[in-house]
């Protein structure tokens, strides 16, 4: 591959590798990276992965779109549903889902409502979010914001829109969050996962071109770095070829 791997392409490949054949999942609101990951998994190792739960099944878009709530982005799809069926999917859960927000904290909680102030007297009011259920009715979810700074990775979010691991195992259990919750976090800089015992976020690997120190500097809480941090396995030739030639034909992930 001639052109260098972009940070978004690296994110897509990390996510795609974790999606399994036969699973049911959906992309969430910020769909660009998740849809590319789902499509890549379907092309490479998960031909029976079903895209569903967001009012359409198995869309075949001609290119990548920032939102799937667009008939052009759906392209041709196998079937359409409505919010009535979404009500049921939200209770039954999916195998995987994706989230990102204004703020993400050390336990994988996500804020989309307000930064500063209070809900009804906010310093900055965010968009809110529609689906608050897939994060815990689904087997797992992934956090994949396309920016990673000390401002959007904070020790504690100002408002928990999407619960991650709350404040750890005890709080999670008390709230009735019985599924895995956020499995890992992938950003343009690195991959973070959660300590099995404390459920606190920690640095797992850094993408090519980044150092652990840089990632820590751009994160508003301690990432628990102890020894050498491995590099995120870069895309293989096959992954990159399929991604660029069959899924992201317009180069959106490199723009």
């Amino acid at each position, binding site marked *: 591959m001639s052109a260098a791997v972009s940070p978004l392409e690296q994110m897509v490949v990390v996510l795609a590798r974790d999606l399994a054949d036969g699973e049911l999942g959906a992309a969430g609101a910020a769909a660009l990276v998740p849809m590319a990951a789902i499509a890549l998994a379907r092309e490479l190792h998960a031909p029976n992965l079903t895209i569903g739960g967001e009012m359409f099944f198995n869309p075949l878009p001609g290119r990548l779109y920032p939102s799937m709530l667009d*008939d*052009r982005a759906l392209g041709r799809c196998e079937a359409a549903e409505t919010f009535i069926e979404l009500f049921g999917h939200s209770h039954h859960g999916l195998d995987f889902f994706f989230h990102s927000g204004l703020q993400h904290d050390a336990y994988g909680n996500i804020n989309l409502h307000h930064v500063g102030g209070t809900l009804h007297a906010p310093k900055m009011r965010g968009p809110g979010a529609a689906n*608050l259920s897939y994060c815990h009715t689904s087997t797992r979810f992934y956090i994949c914001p396309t920016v990673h700074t000390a401002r959007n990775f904070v020790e504690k979010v100002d*408002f928990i829109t999407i619960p991650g691991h*709350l404040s750890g195992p005890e709080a999670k259990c008390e709230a009735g969050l019985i599924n895995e919750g956020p499995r890992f976090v992938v950003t343009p800089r690195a991959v973070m996962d959660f300590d099995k015992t404390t459920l606190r976020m920690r640095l797992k690997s850094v993408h090519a071109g980044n150092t652990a120190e840089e990632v820590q500097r751009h994160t508003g809480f301690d990432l628990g770095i102890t020894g050498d941090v491995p590099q995120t396995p870069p895309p293989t030739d096959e992954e990159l070829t399929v991604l660029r030639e069959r899924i992201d034909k317009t180069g959106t992930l490199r723009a």
Partner: protein
Amino acid sequence: MEGNTNPTRRSKVAGLQDAARLALDALQDRPELCLGGLFKQGRPVALVRALLAAGASGLHVYSSPGAGYDIDLMIAAGAVEQVFIPGVTLENRLCPNFRSAVEAGQVTAHALDALTVVGGLMASAHGVPFQPIDALRGSDVLKHNPLIREIDCPFSGRRIHAVGPIRPRVTFLHAQEADRWGNLRHLSTMVYADQLMARASDMVIASVDRIVPDNVILDDPSRVTVPGHYVDAVVELPYGAHPTASFPNYAMDEDHIDAYADLGDAARAGDRAGLDAYIARHVTGPKSQDDYIEAVGGAGYLARLEAEARKR
């Protein structure tokens, strides 16, 4: 009793101003307005503009769980008191006037989620006193959501949630086609929550890109998405969803929405002149949908959106 020897069925076709007055009158007794479509697709924007031009104020606005341009415009025009929509965003950027008004305390934006809104509409549509919800946990939204209560499940004994009926006084929908009796056909891939809202509301007013002959409906009844039984008035409005999309007829006008959002951002920064001019030009100025089409660039401009809608 004098028998009517030649009874005629009443057409539901209405003009834009008449439809807006009908809605405005109904909203006087209960200001609960609900909008069909989702984000930048299938939104009844021409009806919204007409309602704003007719002087609506103090509205409580519901929608399918995601909205952007139209709710922001209604707030910019000073017509909204409370927002009951879980996600308010232009997707590629935040809604400027929504943000400003909520941050200034001029508008109350309730913390809600999709299941509360959909469940409330389901309870109303089905005629039951509440809809149970058993998929809300761990979010701070639960501490603030004004529409839900905790209940004990009578079967399992577990604590679950209930939402009471959401019964909009008026719902505006946009579909691609209808006959004169108000039978609607969505030709778009997604139908959002439009069918649920139609059954949940006191009054339903729909805009359509075109009115079709009765036989189009009669020859293919399974394609009707909302039976005319639920529809009180239908208005033929070419480009009635603009600047949102009405697939497969025309795509969303991203450039128009972005230019509007730039004016909203300028207003946030203290310069409201551009936003006021926008409202005068697009909302209060046009006397008809034809005037509006001219104001946004005419048929030639909109033909681009038709071509874009055919790209799949």
